[in-house]
């Protein structure tokens, strides 16, 4: 994938710079949110495991899913996450939260 260089950036505000990657990859922030979710869940899980010698991965994923939804809402405010991408993130996180609550 070839992206345009930074010299083509017109809007040089924080929002414009943050939104720049979506110009060549529409799903850039979807991937970022997925990465945020995985890092968040793993961090929580391994911190719990270190402290209590055992961890509950599903709970960590549930908590991370809630954090991801909040981050995505902030992303829509900064205009870096489009509504259709946000809805996909919301529904995917909702499924994880539902499984977490039912399993609990």
């Amino acid at each position: 994938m070839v992206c345009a260089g930074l010299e083509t950036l017109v809007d040089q505000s924080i929002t414009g710079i943050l939104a720049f990657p979506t110009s060549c990859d529409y799903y850039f922030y979807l991937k970022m949110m997925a990465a945020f979710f995985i890092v968040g869940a793993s961090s929580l899980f391994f911190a719990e495991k270190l402290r209590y010698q055992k961890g509950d991965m599903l709970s960590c994923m549930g908590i991370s899913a809630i954090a991801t939804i909040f981050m995505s809402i902030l992303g829509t405010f900064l205009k870096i996450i489009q509504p259709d991408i946000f809805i996909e993130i919301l529904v995917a996180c909702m499924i994880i939260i539902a499984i977490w609550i039912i399993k609990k």
Partner: protein
Amino acid sequence: MVTFYKLFTSFLMIALLVFGLLSFGIQFQSENNVEDPFVENQLINETYGTLQTDLNSYGSESQLQKSLFESDEPLAGFGSILLFSILSAGKVFNGMVVGTFNTLIKLPIVILGVDPVIVSVLGTLLIFSIIMGLWILYKLGG
């Protein structure tokens, strides 16, 4: 086997959490004048509205079942006490679980393109769990 009480509590908690997250998102976007709010999506709007109506109606329906339960005259059965109002409560509360499931499952079907076969299997599992849970509730009271 999951008990009916646990299933019912889980589904209401899921409905409440999803409703809370949607409410927060809608309010946050409206207060900050986001240009393209996600509530304009027809499916999200419909889900939010249905959840709001359902959760509002659950309070009055529960009150009605409470009144029925209080007015029921207990009969002495074989090793237990018989209360027929529990049948009505079971019918109403199982409707709440199925209603919540039907409202929430629309989102993954349409947005993530979940196969109808998967939804059908999940629905079957849920209904079977409800029937077994209610049977245990009627038979043993717990």
